[in-house]
């Protein structure tokens, strides 16, 4: 029994520092190898070899890139604002690296000194901390864009700020539906509620997941939402003037944002470290590590084990890596949006849909409570059906092309007016009719 107490005293301090350093190192390593994976996967998609000269299969490429960037000359425009030019990359990289701290990454690990939670900081504000820090990241972008005194960089910074604040609203609203089912803002509780329900939230909250996925792509400035650094329009946007390690810092920031977003998608909608089945369930409930409740409502104690921790860690890693792969896959699949399309998608589609979805989910949950359906499999099944209907309706509506105009000519402006045949120049490449 005393094995199942939370760790305390000096071992707890050691565990805390160890976890911080381990997560920080892991983040940097994953970021480094995601850059290689991106190049390898893009090569694979485009049917070429990709980097394969530095080390076996190019595995030492990120290290070579790092050394190269370290030794390259740093440039700074003479007209730049020196202080903010230097501070910009730091403001960008710091929030990017600390956001992952509230994500639980494995089942609790039993040690001779007590049970160690596999999370850096299980703070009571959980999701709110993530929302706060993800919006801090925009300061780095907009300040570095402004301080460069370069028109491309400035426009990139402005675009970044407008785009990120627009999609943050939809991101926050899609999280609200998760909070309704979790009943708490800590991510450990979100994972636990998914274990309790027997459903990963991606099913009962399918539309919420789709909204979160789209907003996460926009928040990380990845294709198809990479307007702030659209090469064909803005050189490279807000980091046009940056070279050497200052450029690398923006790069690390972008990739660790991707990592955090992937880890969040895995945690909020795909059970986090939870694997199918109840064997790995574990949650701190009134000082006891429990695996669930029996029919009478009495808690069942959990049986933590090191192999369960390892397996769940691997499961969490796999889910996160899948979403990182999805990021890269989408990048080489979809073309870039136009900026007005980005903004109308954010304000005219995502925001109203997310608002309506919040109300639909809350009404469904309250009706289920009224019918005294207990929180569990049936509960999840009904929500899955309702959300599935919403998702189909949403995708059908998006596909109808009414809100986001496809061409430079505003859509269907020419439809109501039937042009007389005599006025149509048969030789001209026509915008008339489609």
């Amino acid at each position: 029994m005393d094995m199942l107490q939370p760790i305390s005293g000096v071992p707890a301090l050691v565990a805390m520092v160890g976890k911080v350093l381990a997560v920080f190192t892991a983040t940097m390593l994953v970021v480094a190898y995601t850059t290689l994976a991106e190049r390898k996967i893009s090569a694979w998609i485009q049917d070429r070899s990709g980097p394969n000269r530095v080390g076996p299969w190019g595995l030492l490429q990120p290290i070579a890139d790092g050394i190269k960037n370290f030794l390259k000359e740093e440039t700074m425009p003479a007209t730049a604002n020196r202080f903010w030019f230097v501070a910009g990359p730091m403001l960008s990289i710091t929030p990017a690296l600390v956001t992952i701290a509230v994500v639980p990454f494995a089942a609790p690990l039993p040690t001779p000194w007590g049970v160690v939670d596999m999370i850096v900081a299980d703070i009571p504000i959980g999701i709110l901390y993530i929302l706060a820090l993800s919006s801090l990241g925009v300061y780095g972008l907009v300040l570095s864009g402004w301080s460069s005194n370069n028109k491309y960089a400035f426009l990139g910074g402005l675009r970044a700020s407008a785009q990120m604040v627009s999609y943050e609203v939809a991101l926050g609203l899609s999280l609200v539906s998760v909070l309704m089912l979790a009943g708490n803002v800590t991510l450990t509780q979100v994972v636990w509620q998914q274990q309790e329900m027997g459903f990963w939230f991606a099913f009962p909250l399918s539309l919420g997941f789709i909204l979160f996925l789209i907003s996460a792509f926009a928040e990380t400035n990845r294709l198809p939402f990479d307007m702030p650094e659209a090469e064909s329009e803005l050189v490279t946007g807000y980091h046009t003037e940056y070279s050497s390690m200052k450029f690398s810092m923006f790069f690390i920031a972008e990739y660790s944002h991707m990592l955090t977003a992937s880890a969040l998608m895995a945690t909020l909608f795909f059970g986090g470290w939870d694997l199918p089945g109840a064997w790995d369930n574990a949650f701190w409930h009134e000082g006891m590590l429990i695996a669930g409740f029996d029919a009478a409502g009495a808690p069942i104690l959990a049986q933590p084990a090191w192999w369960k921790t390892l397996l769940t860690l691997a499961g969490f890693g796999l889910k996160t890596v899948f979403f990182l792969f999805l990021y890269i896959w989408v990048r080489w699949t979809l073309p870039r949006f136009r900026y007005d399309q980005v903004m109308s998608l954010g304000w005219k589609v995502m925001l109203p849909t997310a608002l309506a979805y919040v109300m639909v989910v809350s009404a469904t949950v309250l009706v289920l409570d009224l019918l005294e359906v207990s929180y569990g499999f049936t509960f999840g099944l009904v929500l899955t059906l309702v959300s599935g209907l919403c998702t189909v309706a949403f995708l059908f509506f998006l596909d109808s092309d009414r809100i986001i105009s496809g061409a430079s000519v505003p859509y269907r402006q020419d439809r109501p007016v039937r042009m007389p045949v005599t006025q149509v120049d048969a030789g001209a490449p026509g915008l008339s009719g489609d």
Partner: protein
Amino acid sequence: MSGSYAPLLILFGVSILNAVGIAVATHIVNPRRPTPQKDMPYESGMIPLGDTRERFSVKFYMVAISFIVFDLETIFLVPWAVGMRGLGWGGFVAMSLFVVVLTLGLVYEWKKGGLEWD
């Protein structure tokens, strides 16, 4: 178990040290050979015309204002969402009124053209 904020402080410390360390180290290590051309902002090889700090489109301000309204709405929704099942239908009706009022605002802004980007 809800833990303390101490590990976050350590992680913040490590991250800030990392950022400052990279900046200082590169400043020491790498060469600096400025030329007038190199010190110019890169605007596709053109000599920059005029200063960047000029007026820019009002639409970005519009987005910022809309953001404040709807981000605050999200934050008001969070406590209700967490306590929703305890608050029951009373809470639902109250929140529906709140959402309807804000939706009316959104519709008004939309019809006024505040969300148009062209």
